[in-house]
């Protein structure tokens, strides 16, 4: 056991002498770092639950017949999977864990602007999760994560209201986080930390928060309307009662398209940090990356109709939405180009976080490009509601958002815990995840293009090969997700001490001790340099000093 003492006075230390005091010091904490850890644990538990549902789905799909689950149970399984992964893992994931931990540290503040609101948001998250899980235990929901009406409002006989209540409450948790981030970034920056000296992670967290505060209330009221309609049998979305089910889809996607950017934008921010740190270069085109986040936040509000090409919206609306969808791909592409340019002539070291970053770039490109396919009305009409769409969004959500999340967790793990994890296992599991991921989801593009619809548990024999491939890949992927849980946990006891700045990176968070002291900065720093102020020749220096055996 490496018991060498971590720096005294860090936020993990407890003065608590009784269990009650210990309990209080964690569950009533207002320290953004402790709240981040609360979120880390709870969000990962939800991730595992969502993964469990995914396992059931993939096992069922190994054979063309429905031998494991009935059609009804299958509906409930993929709905549970979708709801947990979207509402309780991806949307809060990076902002609530990494954002909560890093935003104050990166801008030189002692805490979030509203520490108690921050804690409250965690309780809301847990309450929402409890509702959703209760609904699952008492039979689950079969509407899909999209709650389409009039099925959800009139016909479904599953626990729609309980689940909706969960998503609704969880929405307010994200709103609380979003408000906190916006205010913190506006008002709590250290002297000298101008907007254009902010790390790009802060820019992307800011853009994410804008989306959260503008979009989440809309889905909140929409879900509320569905619940009311269900309870009192009144027909706002039910065509039989004069209502319009398309209105639901408009309101839902007005939130949920921007919500996909809530999931991916923080990931973009993480990747910018990783690429800079492991290329030892300033990020190429800093302003472009910063503004592309803002552009995505704004444009993201204009494209919801691409989810409704076949829902009976007018052809002209479809064409406009198609065109706008092309536009929103531009800022995403700008980021990819700038990261690539940052890598160019960088001193690249293939440490675990960097493996995730590179994996992210490859997978997100595939996910984004297939998004453009889907944005073209003619192609979408062919593949909508097939596994092609399923593959598309898993490439961006798993290949993008989760890869970035894992990369970020590894990169800042030494800062959060004060200890290093096993680099060997880190690299191995990153590769396993990459291989397993592609094996799971690439066949889904093919099978979807061939005509396999999504959300069915039986399928024609000829698709079996591809489905088996996908399920086998999912097994590998699962192993890849489990290994990090093991070595990261072990590192808490056996990890080498990290020191303040194990990656030799720039950024205020690396100037404080690891783990940071409770109030982050003994003295509020004064910032005089831009972000990523690596020496212009840092990369060449590194190359010149390279010896066999030094880190890659």
């Amino acid at each position, binding site marked *: 056991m490496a018991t060498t003492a971590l720096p005294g006075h860090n936020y993990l230390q407890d*003065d608590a002498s009784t269990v009650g005091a210990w309990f209080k010091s964690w569950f009533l904490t207002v320290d953004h770092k402790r709240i981040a850890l609360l979120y880390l644990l709870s969000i990962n538990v939800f991730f595992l639950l969502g993964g469990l549902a995914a396992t059931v789905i993939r096992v069922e799909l190994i054979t063309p017949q429905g031998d494991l689950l009935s059609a009804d149970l299958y509906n409930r399984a993929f709905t549970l999977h979708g709801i947990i992964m979207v509402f309780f893992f991806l949307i809060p994931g990076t902002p609530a864990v990494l954002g909560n931990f890093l935003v104050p540290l990166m801008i030189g503040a002692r805490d979030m602007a509203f520490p108690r609101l921050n804690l409250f948001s965690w309780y809301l998250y847990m309450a929402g999760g409890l509702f959703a899980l209760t609904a699952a235990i008492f039979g689950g929901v079969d509407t899909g994560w999209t709650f389409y009406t009039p099925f959800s409002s009139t016909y479904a006989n599953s626990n729609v209201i309980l689940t909706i209540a969960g998503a609704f409450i969880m929405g307010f948790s994200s709103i609380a986080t979003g408000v906190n981030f916006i205010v913190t970034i506006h008002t709590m920056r250290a002297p000298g930390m101008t907007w254009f000296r902010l790390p790009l992670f802060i820019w992307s967290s800011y853009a994410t928060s804008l989306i959260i505060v503008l979009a989440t209330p*809309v889905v909140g009221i929409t879900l509320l*309307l569905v619940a009311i309609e269900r309870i009192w049998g009144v027909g706002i979305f039910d065509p039989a009662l*004069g209502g319009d089910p398309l209105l639901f889809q408009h309101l839902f996607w007005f939130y949920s398209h921007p919500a996909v950017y809530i999931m991916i934008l923080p990931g973009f921010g993480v990747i910018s940090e990783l690429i800079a740190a492991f290329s030892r270069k300033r990020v190429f085109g800093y302003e472009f990356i910063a503004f592309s986040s803002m552009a995505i936040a704004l444009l993201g509000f204009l494209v919801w109709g691409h989810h409704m090409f076949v829902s009976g919206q007018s052809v002209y609306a479809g064409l406009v939405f198609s065109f706008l969808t092309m536009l929103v791909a531009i800022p995403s592409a700008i980021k990819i180009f700038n990261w690539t340019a940052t890598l160019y002539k960088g001193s690249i070291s293939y440490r675990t976080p960097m493996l995730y970053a590179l994996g992210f770039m490859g997978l997100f490109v595939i996910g984004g490009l297939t998004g453009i396919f889907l944005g073209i009305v003619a192609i979408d009409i062919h593949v909508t509601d097939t596994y092609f769409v399923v593959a598309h969004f898993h490439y961006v959500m798993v290949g993008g958002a989760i890869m970035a999340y894992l990369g970020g967790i590894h990169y800042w793990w030494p800062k959060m815990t004060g200890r290093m994890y096993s680099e060997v296992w880190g690299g191995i599991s990153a590769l396993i995840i990459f291989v397993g991921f592609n094996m799971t989801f690439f066949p889904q593009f093919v099978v979807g293009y061939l005509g396999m619809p999504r959300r069915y548990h039986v399928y024609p024999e000829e698709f079996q090969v591809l489905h088996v491939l996908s399920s086998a890949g999912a097994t590998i992927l699962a192993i890849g997700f489990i290994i990090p849980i093991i070595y990261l946990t072990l590192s808490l006891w056996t990890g080498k001490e990290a020191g303040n700045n194990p990656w030799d990176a720039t950024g205020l968070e690396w100037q404080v001790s690891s783990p940071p002291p409770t109030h982050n900065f003994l003295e509020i720093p004064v910032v005089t340099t831009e972000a990523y102020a690596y020496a212009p020749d840092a990369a060449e220096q590194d190359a010149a000093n390279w010896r066999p055996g030094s880190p890659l």
Partner: protein
Amino acid sequence: MRRGREAHPPASRIPHPAARILVSKEKILATTTTTTSPHGHADHGHAAHGPELQHHFCTPAQQKEAATLGMWVFLVTEVMLFGGIFMAYAVYRWAFPEVWAEAAYHLNTPLGTINTVVLLVSSLTVALAVSAAEAGKRTRVIQLLLVTMVLGVAFLGLKAYEYSEKFSHCAGYSTPAQWVGGGEQHAVYECLVPGQAFLFPADKTTGVSNAPTVAGQGTPYQLFFFLYFVATSLHAVHMLIGLTIMGYLAFITWRGVITPTYFTPIEIGGLYWHLIDIVWVFLFPLFYLVH
């Protein structure tokens, strides 16, 4: 942050209070009794500012800016929340303009108008409370906040009466008083509460002679009343929250927390109250005045 700590030596000019640990460690250790406080942060030197400055802010100005911006951002989320209802409203009014014009006759416009005036006056009293707080007139602040609360309760009372009118019609009574007092019950000729029993009457008073009698659900008429009930009751929930906030503000003013240099709570509470009023200012014409 106890007020008792104000006895500590005046803060130096360094922006971050804790920085003084580095600057004059001996002095701090000599004077502070709180180095082992649960937060683990050293003494603040509260003499430079009031007790309300939270430890993670550097200056009162920063704290005020954060609180105000936070409230504004929150108000944006509120606008978007109601925005969803307004969107639904726009879609259905676009689809069924005649239905809207006809249905609006069945809302109690005189009561709605009175309520609008009540709320606008309450906005005025809140605004006056803010300036009274700035001027340090404590009793005046409390009085104005209480007047605001009275007006808010009056609004909710009238609103509740309007609702009960609709419900008493569904139960077969002409007025809520008869319903409660056990008056004469008659056959239900209208029920404007959305649901299974919804019944839109051919009303002689509207002036629309050929207005159809539409029984049951399945008519766009019910959409109007559905949106009316959802929007106004969501608004009423916000009024309840607003009343709680006003009560809290009056309480802390009475306790002496509010001073001419620290009245941010009154300001941002006032902002919230104004928002509720503005929402009503939109709801009123959109529902009551569209005939």
